[in-house]
């Protein structure tokens, strides 16, 4: 799953013939002035300036400015670029033509298990939620893309008539092509607008998710997926992602500010159950972490140090199910080194560590980590006979 920003999405729309307004993405407001000299539309149209970052609720934060002329757009860009929002800094803005239009439509395609579903309404725009009953749906089985005729008919079902129905049918057909060929997971266009005087259509806003696992077959994907956790990634998260991209198996890390229980858990399934257990017992998690697929010990060590450096934590849960092939001795070796290193840097003061794990070489791994008791760590080690998430209960009752 990978959300992509408007700029790259517009580029893909262009590639597949889905009409978009003129737009530019800039990092330097002075560049916009120069682009203005080169492009008539920047001088003559009303413009919209939006922060080109993965930040939710941009409108409320004043990161979307509408109806500007070029001069005002330059000023708005100057104001936005470099602004700090929480832990994020605005680095780019997208400046687009604010096409004056007569009607706003809603067009969306979502992947599902058997293919995809197209959603279409002739009552799009900000009120789409209220007009949700006007949305018509069309299921498209995988590898059975419908004809333009069928899609024009579908536009008719959604209340479009005449030439507009034909044009909408064609746009839907191109959207389906784009979705299919670009390994998209969902594309939402709201609004799709029309200026009837010259029958010009444009997708004014686009939210697109692509399947980043398919990047091996897309030479022109020059974007990186943006954060899907409602805020940009932190430095520590980016570092772990960078390690994750290089190793066999995987390591994952997401910070949850304010939590007291840190997770250093194994496996994509078990890690979620550990998070659940903390929440169910009234605790607060400081992060989500996961290592799986028998990763190298150095990667686990880096993850451990990252977890230990979380502020104000009281417990670390080194939990995991009984592994199938992740070597407990080797991965624990990484964890042990990470703990030692962190302690020498002054972390882990008053932090209790709780361990439960099974799997290949479990006896050696558990014995090795238990020895940390002799080095002054407040560590409690359990084997497979301890129910998986019960160490969370022990931690929170201690």
């Amino acid at each position: 799953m990978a959300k992509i920003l408007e700029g790259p999405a517009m580029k893909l729309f262009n590639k597949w013939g889905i009409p978009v307004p003129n737009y530019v993405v800039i990092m330097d407001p002075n560049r916009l002035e120069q682009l203005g000299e080169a492009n008539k539309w920047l001088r003559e149209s009303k413009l919209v300036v939006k922060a080109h970052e993965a930040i939710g609720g941009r409108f409320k934060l004043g990161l979307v400015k509408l109806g500007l002329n070029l001069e005002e757009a330059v000023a708005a860009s100057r104001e936005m670029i470099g602004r700090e929002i929480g832990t994020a800094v605005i680095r780019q803005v997208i400046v687009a033509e604010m096409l004056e239009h007569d009607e706003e439509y809603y067009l969306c395609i979502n992947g599902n298990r058997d293919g995809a579903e197209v959603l279409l309404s002739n009552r799009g725009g900000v009120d789409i939620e209220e007009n949700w009953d006007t949305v018509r749906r069309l299921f498209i089985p995988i590898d059975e893309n419908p004809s333009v005729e069928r899609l024009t008919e579908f536009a008719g079902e959604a209340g479009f008539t005449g030439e507009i129905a034909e044009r909408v049918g064609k746009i839907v057909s191109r959207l389906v092509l784009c979705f299919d060929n670009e390994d998209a997971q969902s594309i939402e266009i709201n609004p799709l607008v029309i200026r009837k005087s010259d029958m010009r259509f444009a997708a004014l806003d686009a939210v697109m998710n692509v399947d980043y696992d398919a990047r091996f077959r897309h030479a022109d994907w020059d974007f990186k997926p943006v954060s899907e956790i409602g805020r940009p990634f932190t430095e520590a998260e980016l570092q772990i992602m960078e390690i994750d991209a290089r190793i066999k198996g995987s390591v994952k890390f997401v910070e949850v500010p304010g939590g007291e229980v840190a997770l250093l858990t194994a496996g994509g399934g078990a890690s979620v159950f550990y998070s659940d257990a903390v929440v169910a017992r009234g605790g607060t998690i400081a992060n989500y972490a996961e290592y799986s697929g028998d990763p190298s010990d150095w990667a686990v060590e880096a993850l451990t140090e990252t977890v230990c450096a979380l502020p104000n934590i009281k417990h670390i849960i080194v939990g995991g199910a009984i592994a199938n092939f992740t070597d407990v001795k080797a991965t624990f070796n990484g964890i042990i080194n990470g703990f030692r290193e962190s302690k020498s840097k002054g972390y882990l003061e008053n932090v209790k560590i709780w361990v439960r794990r099974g799997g290949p070489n479990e006896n050696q791994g558990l014995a090795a980590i238990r020895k940390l008791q002799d080095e002054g760590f407040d560590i409690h080690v359990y084997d497979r006979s301890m129910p998986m998430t019960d160490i969370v209960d022990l931690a929170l009752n201690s």
Partner: protein
Amino acid sequence: MSILASRDTRVVIIGGVAGLNAARRMAQFDFLVNRPLSVQAFVYPPEEGQQKEIYRGGELKNVPVYSSLEEALAENPGINTALIYIGANRAYTAAKEAIEAGSIKLVSMITEGVPEKDAKRLRKLANAKGKLFNGPSSIGIMSAGECRLGVIGGEFKNLKLCNLYRPGSFGVITKSGGLSNEAMWLCAQNGNGVTTAVAIGGDAYPGTDFVTYLEMFEKDPDTKAVVIVGEVGGTLEDEAAEWLAAEKRRIRLIATIGGTCQEVLPQGMKFGHAGAKEGKKGVGSARAKMNALRDAGALVPDTFGGLSKCIKQVYEELLADGSIKPEPEIDEALLPELPLKVQEIMKQGEVIVEPLIRTTISDDRGEEPRYVGYAASELCEKGYGIEDVLSLLWSKKLPSREESEIIKRIIMISADHGPAVSGAFGAIIGACAGIDLPQAVSAGMTMIGPRFGGAVTNAGKYFKYGVKEYPNDIAGFLSWMKQNVGPVPGIGHRVKSVKNPDKRVKYLVDYVKNHTSLHTPCLDYALEVEKITTSKKDNLILNVDGTIGCILVDLDFPEQSLNGFFVLARTIGMIGHWIDQTTQGSKLIRLYDYLINYAVKEEREVPEKK
């Protein structure tokens, strides 16, 4: 009974090293339940034609690697299952071919990071062909007592701890691989173990789902209850709930769902498996799924921690109503143990293996080599040199400073003797023919023998013999030599003579006798011999081989080592000649006709063959 995999399952693994590791784990299970090897073939074009060694217990089996599935199936018609262990960019093609192959009924894919579109297509294809496509990202399928597909179940010890050597009464279906193993453990601890456990993988659109396998378990009389471990995202758990509610079901359902933590996390924050994503407006939330399953009649604990209790409760109810008949447990002591490797048994002191070779000089088992006990780095640090290492490895002694100096000078003096001598010339011819350093130098090295540089050992040996047996009787020694050996090794030179002495010999003799305190009985003896022989013929001088041989005997080097000094020293020169020739880019050389005396027959006609 079981579902999906049984004693009749025969497997082809498509993929390289990860597939081989899985096959080895599977063979351990085959050994535990005493069935023939389940993996019959690999498909992996880069290793076509190889055979992979797989131990089934103590028995070594060779499993062939084919370049195509078609070939593998043609030669192994019993194969009915394919496991995909190949990279995400090739997984689709491999799985498609397997699904389309007539004899294969089940295709399970462990590959992670497979594009969703590929998984959707494979599912559609499998459905159309009436096949099963399990995965992607599936750790595998385990039918207790019957068959293991993939590494599910972990190490051998765990197979026993989870009672997987015999079937129980619980089915297991999970998205997560690690939790499939945990669930099998819980079923063994709180119930009587599993019939079959399936991991469907945590991707957004797995090829099969809970309902696929619930249907199968419902039809399997040995399965009395099913444990499913689901999670937030998608609709598979809700479909399981609908299935359960649709009609009266024979099997009991226990379900636990991960992801309730998302209720309190900042909005939009999601983690876990690719498929673990809550949709808009709470669609696919863990809580909604738990409620749906509970409403449908499943036993759903609030947390994973409550799963043990649920399994125990269902097990006791099933025992009470007679659905499960208690069976005597197999005595675990009767189960086979994986045979240990020789090293492991030796460590336990239970077996003696006679060593194949014996060494008395060098030990590589520590962090660095030790020469006769001394660490190499420590020798360096304490100022020892190559002569000392040579002495340690050749005669197991650390020489004195004075002795080292002599050894060093012997090597320096013998390192090279120009391009014309046999050894250097051989190496040069090799270099000019364009062959590589080790081969060219060994071409020169093969020249070392009785006529060239190889007389050191024999010279030392016989002069030592003379000192011992004919101490004051040179004439007696020479006559013994004449009778028993022939010319005295170390005496005589092709060009040098009394009037034209060998400077090297003069230098060495002078150095050893006048600048060191070495006691030199053997060298002195040889010089006495020289006096007699040169009186007979001018060129019967003590040559450099003889001189070195005697000095080395006086230094107490073992006889066998003596030629080594010339070999070692001259190697330095021959390497130099090879480098010299190749740096110059020398051309191939051959002898001119005029350097050859063609003492051959006149041209003549070949007779008819008789």
